[in-house]
């Protein structure tokens, strides 16, 4: 006897209770704190802030905890909260030349004003599992830090961006200016063709893994751009809001950001002599992989204005921008778990009918009649 599928409500409640229990894990083990996540899983928090497009460490940490460490789920939680927040205005562009730098490296110059600042990085570690971390070991040794250039005046001259150095010589294209105010991707739907500010917004929110794969593909010959890391820098920058009533900019606080300036070859054209071109990447927190991948993809997407041939996925604006958002992507992929039996029934009927017509002796349960 068929029993109608009832009780969905109770089942969902129970599933949620089970989820909460599973998330908590063994109650004999102390519960993980938001401050621990925010303070010790910093790169996860950085990624959630970046792709969640909301700079708020405690909220990102809360999202990671609630999502059981699933970062895309955490990004989704943050986005769903962010979208409800009112917009008071748009901050002034942050000046990364005035960054309180924690890390700044260039692959194009051995040394330059401000020097190479290695900062906290995995880059030069041996990837050997460290058993001493397993059992609450002693506090790590205090690192010696080089005195950072003071931001009270001296810092600006002391840590110029590498692209500014190249620009001084005219070797690199000037930063492409976009005349008008950039459109806001979160307030109006993406439309094509997208200009560069819109593309960069999209990439900044885009999935790290997707951009990594696309950036990687450009290195392997699918729209090769001959990139050099002009500079990757990570540190704090001040965020300022220009207040009309006051007539001057008011600092709102500081945010930690990573910026990548990629320097790429350009053969030149009839009008333009050979010069270097720019790819730009930017992310909240320390997100170097993301910022670098973004810079590679940004440069690849600029093929048209630089008169290059279109030959690869990373250059395809509609393809890249329509599929970069992991909240959209995961939703649509995972929605396949929702019931589709009405549509499936329609397909079943057709396949059975076509098979029957094909001469198979399958049981024919439905037939078609003219409406």
């Amino acid at each position: 006897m068929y029993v109608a599928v009832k009780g969905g409500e109770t089942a969902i409640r129970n599933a949620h209770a089970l989820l909460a229990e599973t998330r908590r894990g063994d109650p004999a083990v102390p519960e993980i704190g938001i401050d621990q996540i925010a303070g010790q899983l910093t790169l996860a928090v950085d990624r959630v802030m970046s792709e969640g497009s909301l700079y708020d460490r405690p909220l990102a940490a809360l999202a990671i905890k609630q999502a059981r460490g699933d970062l895309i789920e955490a990004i989704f939680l943050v986005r769903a909260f962010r979208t409800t927040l009112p917009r008071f205005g748009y901050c002034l562009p942050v000046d990364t030349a005035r960054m309180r730098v924690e890390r700044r490296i260039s692959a194009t110059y051995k040394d330059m004003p401000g020097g190479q600042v290695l900062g906290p990085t995995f880059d030069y570690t041996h990837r050997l599992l460290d058993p001493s971390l397993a059992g609450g070991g002693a506090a790590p040794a205090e690192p010696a830090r080089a005195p950072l250039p003071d931001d009270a005046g001296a810092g600006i001259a002391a840590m110029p961006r590498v692209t500014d150095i190249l620009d001084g010589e005219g070797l690199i294209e000037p930063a492409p200016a976009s005349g008008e105010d950039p459109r806001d991707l979160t307030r109006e739907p993406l439309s094509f063709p997208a200009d560069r500010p819109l593309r960069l917004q999209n990439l900044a929110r885009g999935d790290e893994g997707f951009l990594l794969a696309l950036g990687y593909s450009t290195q392997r010959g699918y729209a090769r751009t001959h990139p050099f890391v002009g500079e990757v820098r990570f540190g704090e920058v001040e965020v300022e809001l220009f207040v009309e009533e006051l007539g001057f900019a008011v600092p709102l606080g500081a945010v930690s950001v990573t910026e990548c300036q990629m320097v790429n070859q350009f053969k030149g054209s009839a009008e333009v002599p050979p010069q270097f071109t720019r790819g730009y990447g930017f992310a909240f927190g320390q997100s170097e992989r993301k910022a670098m991948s973004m810079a590679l993809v940004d440069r690849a997407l600029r093929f048209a204005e630089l008169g290059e041939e279109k030959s690869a996925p990373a250059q395809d604006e509609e393809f890249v921008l329509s599929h970069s958002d992991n909240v959209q992507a995961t939703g649509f992929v995972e929605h396949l778990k929702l019931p589709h039996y009405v549509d499936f029934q329609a397909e079943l009927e057709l396949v059975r009918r076509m098979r029957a017509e094909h001469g198979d002796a399958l049981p024919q349960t439905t037939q078609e009649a003219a409406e």
Partner: protein
Amino acid sequence: MNAQTPTPQAESRQAEARQAETRQAKTPAGMPAITYNFAYLDEQTKRMIRRAILKAIAIPGYQVPFASREMPMPYGWGTGGVQVTAAILGPDDVLKVIDQGSDDTTNAVAIRGFFETTAGVATTTRTQDATIIQTRHRIPEGALQAGQVLVYQVPIPEPLRFLEPRETETRKLHGLADYGLMHVKLYEDIARHGHIATTYAYPVEVAGRYVMDPSPIPKFDNPKMDDSPALQLFGAGREKRIYAIPPHTKVVPLDFEDHPFRVQHFAKPCALCGAHGVYLDEVILDDRGGRMFVCSDTDYCNTRQAEGHTGEMSAPAPEAAE
């Protein structure tokens, strides 16, 4: 959005008044307080969506881009429909939510619960009692009435998407009313299979102009869209599009003179209520090929059963039916 609904301004004032009573989640010190508006979306967003809806109603079948928001349920779970519903929902509305024709599928339950929590509106499973019906993949069997709004959840709003993946191209094709691609596709189906091999999301022409994706409803439901007294709104959240069929609009499924549009017809009636001419779900009873066919529209089926209709597998005693 029923007939009694006051002006949008008054509705918006009411909603803003409700905002004050909206539950405020407890947040630990150092975190911003988390509050949500009536029906979740802020009033500015609702206005933006209402403008898109009005435009959509003015140009039947045309896909209006709108600044879709992230919703607290995943893309693909009905975020477009939820945003449309949130934008038109007033405190006096009565909401029904179905998925696959049923009020009890998990997603229908979740979306109904969402509006119960965030808007506190009355909900129902009875089609004729609802002022707004949000649906995924079905149109209710019973005829809709003037004043009712049917809100469809749409995954891919572009009927030409699988023929031309680029939005820049498909917008051009719509602009030129160039639907040759679609006709060629349907023709190739017939040439290859002897049938038009589209069984759901069957494309329709709306008001003699735009070819429209009716969302993945079975083509069985397509005739219900034509000349419906209800307002039909379509929301695609991930794809950021809203479109509409105003009441009493001509909706014609694409076909050919020698291959007219036909709907599925089931050989047997519903096994529980004996209804003919309705869309049925196939339920597998065992692993030896045993199966039964029952109404996909659970409200329709339950109503008929309550009226005393029976099918071949109806329970002999009422207590065994549930």
